[in-house]
């Protein structure tokens, strides 16, 4: 599923609402049969911890932590035991092809690698929904494609819903099964991706 629209159209806001980072001033957000407005701040934190994973345009890795520690971070909040946590983080990094870079600082990695670290971090708690806010926005087209390929691969192998926010129509059409167009905070069009309907992949 891709959320499309020009800047300021509300696609990022919608993503934040789904992520439980923001709450609507009007209306309700229901994710996985759960009304987010009914949750306490503590419950929302748990929801973010277990139900959704987030990837951002600017990667948002913590610069003072190594790659491994960044990926481990959500597990700290989930109170996973240290040894188990490290093992899980290593296997998540293997999945994104970065097992050789555990001790590096984010700044020592290329943009594509950093986004893959962010992806590993988003997936470490096995969320049912991956929220990606312009994940390729800071990447050149080749690494952008690599990251998107990886996201699609994970989407298929982990059977996980991916909500992709982008303003690039081509990218959306290449990867998404469903396209939602937003303008001025409203959904103006919601349709299956005409370019991929025949592929029949669940989004």
């Amino acid at each position: 599923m891709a959320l499309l629209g020009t800047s300021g159209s509300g696609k990022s806001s919608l993503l934040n609402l789904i992520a439980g980072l923001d709450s609507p001033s009007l209306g309700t957000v229901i994710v996985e049969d759960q009304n987010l407005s009914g949750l306490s701040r503590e419950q929302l934190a748990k929801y973010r911890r277990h139900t959704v994973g987030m990837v951002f345009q600017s990667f948002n890795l913590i610069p003072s932590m190594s790659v491994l520690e960044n990926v481990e971070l959500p597990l700290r909040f989930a109170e996973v035991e240290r040894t188990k946590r490290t093992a899980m983080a290593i296997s998540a990094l293997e999945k994104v092809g970065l097992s050789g870079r555990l001790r590096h600082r984010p700044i020592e990695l290329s943009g594509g690698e950093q986004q893959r670290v962010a992806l590993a971090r988003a997936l470490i708690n096995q969320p049912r929904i991956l929220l990606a806010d312009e994940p390729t926005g800071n990447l050149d087209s080749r690494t952008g494609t690599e990251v998107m390929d990886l996201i699609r691969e994970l989407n298929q192998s982990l059977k996980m819903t991916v909500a992709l926010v982008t303003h690039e129509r081509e990218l959306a059409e290449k990867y998404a099964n469903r396209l939602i167009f937003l303008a001025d905070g409203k959904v103006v069009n919601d349709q299956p991706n005409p370019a991929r309907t025949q592929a029949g992949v669940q989004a």
Partner: protein
Amino acid sequence: MKLYDSIELAGRNLRESVLRNSLTTLGISVGVASLVAMLSLGIGLQQLASRRLQRSGLFDSIVVTSRRDLRGYNREQEEDGPAPAESPDLNEAARLKIASVPGVVEAYPDLRFITEVRFDDKPHLTMVAGLPFSSKDGDSFEGMQGKFFSSADAHEAILQKSFAAELLGKPSRGAQEINVAEVAKPLLGKQVVMRYSERESTGQDAASYSVISHEMPLTIVGVTDLDPDSMRGSARARVFIPQNLIESMRPMQAYDMRTSRGVTSDQPIYGNVIARVSGAGKVDAVEQSIKKLGFNTFSILDATKSMRRFFAILDLFLGIFGSLALTVASIGIINTLVMAILERRREIGIMKAVGASDGDVRGLFFAEAGAMGLLGGICGTALGWVIGRVINFGTNIYLKGQGFPPENIWSVPVWLVAGAVGFAFVVSLLSGLYPASRAARLDPVQALRYE
């Protein structure tokens, strides 16, 4: 998030901006150091004052008097016992009763008389008093030349140094100026002859007795440095002889004339009995017990109440001044942490986005404040200890220059160390309260919005 993880992350954050956090911690250290230095001086001065009192020997002693003797004295306290006319005599039976009160180590009559002591055939008028053999273990005879009595009833005497000077025919000077060693040297081992009046039964009736004059040679075994005008009552005497010896002499006492009733030759009535208590802390309770027996009591502890109040107030003020520095330091913590929030907005946003709860973020900032407080507290206590030492050292140099013996005016008890570190920790956590809740409330969307 688990506590250990909070602490680990906090430690990492503190190391990230090591200069700023070290400066903040240094601020706390200085605050704690000033607190510790102030209080250690206050405590040290208090200990110095009470050590003086303890040395005086009356700090753990209670003077017991008969109510018959001192009518009207302590009248308000007589309500919890028999009226003066029916109150018991302070005789040997009473002494034994007092000695058996729990907490009393020994009870002995305060025996003293004014008499003539001859040395080199020259008579000298002085007060002679009994000194219990147990005084040997106390530190009241610190600085004494010679030895203590060889046995509890030896025919030996300890002289007060001004009396020693008098025996040697030296012009009387202030007690401070007399050198003990100088006056003791020619006197130790020499003999003096003491006259005394024995009260002896006439055999006619229980209340009548005759007074017989005796002479007794005594060997001078020691000369004390004690100031006769110090707090110790018995120190007002200038010749001390063993308590058992003076008791066996049955000397005529000044008050024997006063109390005609019940005074028999072999049942003397004591003017006052001194009860020595095992610790200054028990004095109050023992005093109450003795009062219940029907006697009047007096202890120096009563007299030190105002002194203790003075030191409590002094400590309070020193503590307030010390705490001011710590308050400044705690503002430093708040400042540092608020800065850290601004700096780490994004990081906090990220943490929240990946599932940190408000409590996790709060805990993290608390851990940082606590770590700075604990570290600052430990360093500060050490620093305060050093400052106290230096002040003590300087004071002693000054005292030496003024011709006084060195004194320890500074004390850091364990409770002060623990208290200072604990206080720094708690103050830091309180300082962390505002920054931590501010960080916890940070809106992650806002925090993540800007590059």
